């Protein structure tokens, strides 16, 4: 133990010395990458170590070093890492305009607008996605999307088959379904709102199902009041689910994993999550072939998942190797790497462009790709202004713990929105 620590520190010392004297020499570059999440898991480590090896083979003398993330922008971990100056050269983290704005406003990351056109990144992501990014920060772009989210209902195929249940087309049908599930002694929906994002997954689904994608988009842009009668329905419905016992009040204290455990053990019938949930399911030894995915039933137009940019690459303003970091992003965006990732069993997301001839590694991912093919609505967590997100998450806890009515919750959000303008 001690020996290996000594050896490690000796190596670190040598690496440091090499960094000191050899920064100009191309053969001694060390690219420190923040991420990916759960790199210590064998399956994920195998995939990324493979990508790393290929990149190192292509760029002689370069080593890539993964730093397991200690958190996200939401809890300040990314900011702290950048500020530490010992920090990463390139970052892969949970994104969305709100989170990215936080680090942009603190001048912690580089603008990448020019790189988009110079390196052809603009051609390598969906056109609508590029447009959206251009519209977010007055034309300047600071992130390269790595993956998209698509949030919808996960259910157990065997349980639904056994009882003859189906995800219906209308909200009232959905409420009836929950009543039936509850009558069987099963919790209809599990949710873990203590994990910030997780609170927003179900809530965002419900807002869109009640008010439609367009209204949610307007509310996020500040063009429609959250307290507008056309917006509050989703929040009011969530409180109704709580009052009727379809969502257990004590879930207000659960985190994502505490709630997911209820679903994996089939004590709960449904769970709102995205493709990344496959990783949780695998860790919990849940049989992924038994998982089904559907969009939340909507009364306004076609039912579709919510989502948006889930993960992005950022380059810290104090990156020691910005050029190399961009090369790494080039590499990640290449067909070869993207297809390899998308077909890997560790794959847990939608990719930022259409991939020709893709074979989804699991049936459930294939289902999610299919449901999301018609487009993805807004997950407010990633679109809300940074100063509003925290309130947004807290009021969802407020509804689920039956402290706030739907109207009160929306009034809280609206007050923060007004402040943000």
């Amino acid at each position, binding site marked *: 133990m001690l020996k290996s620590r000594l050896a490690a520190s000796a190596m670190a010392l040598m690496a440091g010395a090499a960094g000191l004297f050899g920064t100009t020499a191309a053969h001694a570059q060390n690219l420190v990458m923040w991420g990916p999440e759960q790199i210590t898991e064998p399956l994920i480590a195998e995939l990324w170590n493979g990508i790393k090896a290929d990149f190192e083979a292509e760029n002689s003398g370069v080593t890539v070093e993964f730093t397991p993330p200690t958190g996200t922008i*939401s*809890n*300040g971990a990314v*900011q*702290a890492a950048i*500020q530490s100056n010992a920090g990463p050269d390139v970052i892969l983290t949970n994104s969305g305009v709100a989170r990215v704005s*936080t680090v942009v*406003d*603190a*001048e*912690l990351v580089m603008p990448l607008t020019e790189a988009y056109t110079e390196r052809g990144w603009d051609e390598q992501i969906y056109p609508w996605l590029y447009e959206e990014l251009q519209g977010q920060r007055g034309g300047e772009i600071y992130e390269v999307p790595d993956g998209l989210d698509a949030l919808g209902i996960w259910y157990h195929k065997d349980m639904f088959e056994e009882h003859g249940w189906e995800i219906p087309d209308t909200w009232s049908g959905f409420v009836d379904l929950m009543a039936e599930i509850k009558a069987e002694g099963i919790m209809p929906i599990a949710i873990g*709102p*203590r994990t910030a994002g997780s609170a927003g997954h179900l809530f965002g689904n419900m807002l869109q199902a009640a008010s439609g994608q367009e209204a949610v988009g307007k509310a996020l842009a500040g063009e429609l009041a959250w307290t507008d009668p056309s917006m509050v329905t989703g929040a009011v419905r969530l409180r109704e689910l709580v009052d009727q016992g379809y969502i*257990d*009040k*004590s*879930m*207000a*204290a*659960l985190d994502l994993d*505490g709630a997911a*455990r*209820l679903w994996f053990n089939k*004590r709960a019938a449904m769970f709102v999550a995205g493709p990344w949930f496959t990783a949780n399911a695998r860790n919990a030894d849940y049989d992924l072939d038994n998982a089904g995915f559907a969009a939340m039933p909507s009364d306004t137009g076609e039912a579709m998942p919510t989502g948006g940019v889930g993960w992005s690459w950022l380059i810290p303003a104090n990156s020691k190797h910005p050029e190399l970091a961009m090369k790494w992003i080039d590499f990640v965006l290449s067909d070869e790497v993207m297809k390899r990732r998308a077909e890997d069993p560790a794959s847990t997301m939608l990719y930022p462009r259409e991939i020709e001839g893709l074979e989804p590694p699991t049936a459930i991912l294939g289902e999610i790709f299919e449901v999301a093919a018609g487009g993805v609505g807004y997950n407010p967590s990633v679109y809300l202004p*940074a*100063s509003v997100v*925290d309130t947004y998450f*807290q*009021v969802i*806890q*407020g509804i*689920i*713990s039956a*402290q*706030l009515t739907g109207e009160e919750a929306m009034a809280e959000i609206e007050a923060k929105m007004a402040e943000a303008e």
Partner: protein
Amino acid sequence: MSLAGTTTKDADGTAARIARPPRQPRSSSPDRIGSALPLMLPALAVYAVFTLAPIAMTFWLSFTDSGGFNTTANFVGVDNYVRATQDPIIWQSLVRTLLWVIYHLVLAGGLGLVLAIAISRLRTTQVFFRTAFFLPHLVSLAVVGVIWANIYDPFYGLLNTALERIGLGNWTQGWLSDPLLVLFSVNVASSWQGFGLYMLLFIAGLQNIDPSLYEAAEIDGANEWHKLRDITLPGLSEVMTFVVSLALINGLKGFATVFVMTGGGPFYQSELITTYIYRLAFSAQDHGLAAVLCILLSLFAISITIVFNRWRARQSA
């Protein structure tokens, strides 16, 4: 003691007394500051850089619009103070903090006292119980948070599942989701960790009480309650002062269990000043408002200390 020994000592003493020049009176010739400085310097340097300077800078920050560690901060007068008065969560967190401190004092201090009195009556098993009851104090509060979050889990936790198994199913609660219960529940976890130290201190205090006092009281026919009221508690008064101040300060510093178990939720119901400072400073990057809260926390700590010491002084006067 041998005769020779005594003689030698006497002789030495006498010799010394004669050889020694007359002692200087105490009040004269204070040492120059130069002789104290080198001894003070290491402590002063560390303390000035890492404590005093940050205290001063906190004041400055509270008058700026600093929005992050790398951004430039502009002077904005009392804006942050005005914003603070308008933020209902700040006031709520103040009340929660006060409640939190009281819970800690009663739960951890009270349990420590009761167990100390019980344990100090034991002979053969005293060390065993003292050692066993101190074990929770060795667990870091953050780790306590991880443990108790699992104990309180409404569906899989030790507490609810055990209640169900022993037929008390209707006693199960959403320990961390019920708005009225959550702060108390988290405090129980903190106090579980905290009471052991107070217990040890009380035991030490009890050992300093003269046993003959009890014997005399017994001869006078005093019962257990009288002995507790008239001998034990008064005899503990000094330790009590120390433990109460310690518990107050520890209570005010409460952070880790809340941070780990609830993050301040649900809907700010367990938000303390400390967790709200963290939220504002590190997640919302609103350093100006966070600095106001920092000053509030300091004032809170100072005034609790002063009020308590005043009260104590009046009690003993």
